[in-house]
């Protein structure tokens, strides 16, 4: 059976180094998120990290596995950081913990831990939360550039109190994300919308705040590509198909427009997804050809769900749907080794396709 492996078997490196590099590559995006959305992001990441490490340790302990050895590989921490960055800031603590427990226990440990999970654990947690708590999960606070005169994001202490004790204090500073605004637009041409809505007219190319967050994740992703942590196939295929879909449906900005390619590329979780979620070596397809199909599928689904579906940002569902299909893609995209006609046995070749 095709088992996911480290991406470049010729050069064995420990999981820990890879995870550390990926965490490092997250940092530009994380800093941009922190800069624009305040301490809520920091608290989310910390809560997720603590909870994920505890869950992982408990599960390993129950299974009599060496706890510190497995904790040190950093995969639980990475899942937690990505989930924490994806969640809206200032969520009540119990929602964050629910998502994190679901991600680590149901998404990862019940399948046997690192290397065995068929679904991306972070996205399992995110999707479970958006299905269970849609109202909380769609309330993003305004980026700092859009706050009214005299208001500011809560400081560390206030944010912590909001998260731990209740959610009422943040009503004044939450609002629709750029994706929501374009989705719910009726009657305004895209140009008018961009002129009239401060989310767009204070931004440079795709919506204030979000463009820099996506640029940050893009930078990190390019670093990871340069460091050969993953191959280019899946992320480029995903971004390419998202661009192609949005170009195909782009009608130069009528009132029924679904958003320009640049808007889709730099909104929501696009870049984070493309370089940090889609490239997950465990739950994606394994062959190169398979990864291209996998990426194209995710890009197409992201555009379809964003444009016509019920959920505002589609990345988690698109990734989970592609995870469902990944073993099938693998099965049909592996090239048969030369001289072997029999198909009854699963192909164990790791040759590039």
């Amino acid at each position, binding site marked *: 059976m095709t088992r996911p492996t480290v991406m470049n078997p010729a050069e064995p490196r420990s999981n820990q180094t890879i995870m550390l590099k990926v965490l490092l590559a997250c940092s530009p995006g994380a800093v941009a998120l922190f800069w624009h959305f305040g301490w809520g992001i920091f608290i989310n990441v910390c809560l997720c990290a603590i909870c994920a490490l505890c869950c992982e340790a408990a599960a390993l302990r129950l299974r009599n596995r060496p706890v510190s050895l497995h904790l040190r590989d950093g995969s639980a921490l990475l899942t937690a950081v990505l989930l924490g960055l994806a969640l809206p800031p200032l969520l009540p603590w119990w929602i964050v913990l629910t998502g994190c427990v679901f991600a680590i226990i149901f998404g990862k440990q019940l399948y*046997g831990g690192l290397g065995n999970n068929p679904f991306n654990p972070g996205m399992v947690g995110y999707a479970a939360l958006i299905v269970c708590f849609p109202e909380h999960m769609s309330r993003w606070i305004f980026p700092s550039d859009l706050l009214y005169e005299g208001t500011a994001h809560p400081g560390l202490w206030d944010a912590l109190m909001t998260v731990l004790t209740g959610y009422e204090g943040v009503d004044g500073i939450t609002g629709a994300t750029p994706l929501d605004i374009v989705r719910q637009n009726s009657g305004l041409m895209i140009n008018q919308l961009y002129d009239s809505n401060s989310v767009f007219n204070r931004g440079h190319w795709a919506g204030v705040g979000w463009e820099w967050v996506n640029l940050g994740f893009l930078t990190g992703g390019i670093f990871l590509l340069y460091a050969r942590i993953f191959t280019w196939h899946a992320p480029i295929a995903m971004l390419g198909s998202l661009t192609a879909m949005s170009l195909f449906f782009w009608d130069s900005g009528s009132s029924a427009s679904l958003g320009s390619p640049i808007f889709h590329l730099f909104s929501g979780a696009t870049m984070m997804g493309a370089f940090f979620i889609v490239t997950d070596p465990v739950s994606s397809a394994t062959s190169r050809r398979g990864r291209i199909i996998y990426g194209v599928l995710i890009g197409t689904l992201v555009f379809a769900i964003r444009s016509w579906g019920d959920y505002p940002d589609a990345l988690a569902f698109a990734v989970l749907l592609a995870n469902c299909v990944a073993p099938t893609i693998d099965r049909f995209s592996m090239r048969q080794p030369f001289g072997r006609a029999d198909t009854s046995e699963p192909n164990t070749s790791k040759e590039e396709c």
Partner: protein
Amino acid sequence: MLDFVVILFSSVLVNNYVLVQTLGGSSLMRVSNNSWAVGSIAAATVATSTLTAIIAYCLDQTVLLPFDLMYLRTFTFICVIACTVQAIKLWVKHFAPVHSSNLHVFLPLLAGNCVVLSVALYNARSDTSLLQALLSGFGAGASYAIVLICFTFMRERLDAADIPQPFKGGAVAMLTAGLMSIAFMGLSGLV
């Protein structure tokens, strides 16, 4: 034309019979650990479901409705399914004996697959045309087939995984089906 595309798209993806309406789960769990037979079973399910939908629709329109025998619907449709499955079995045995042994074990599960029955009942309850009945029958079969294929290869990958002892086998298969179901919720609203 657009209606027909919508019917297919809806029954295969958005209102997937197995993952969204949770029908045919028991058959899915039993069948999906045989990757060698998955192609034959998927094809047989599509054929059964399409044929049953057409025959059940015709019987409903020509016999049950005119004689006011609606209370016999479930019984009649079950008989139709049993006969269709038997006919498919004979056909396969005659024309494609290679697949005959593959299918032999699973035909009872095919007959007991509630996706097939439910699509016939849905068609009878909602006011459909023959073409719509055919398409929804085909869509139901295809939705089961797609989930079956993905699920089978997923389970094949899980067989190699280091799953905790209490969750091996059925438990983790149910968990996987649940997570796939969450994934399919993301498609809601597309039609």
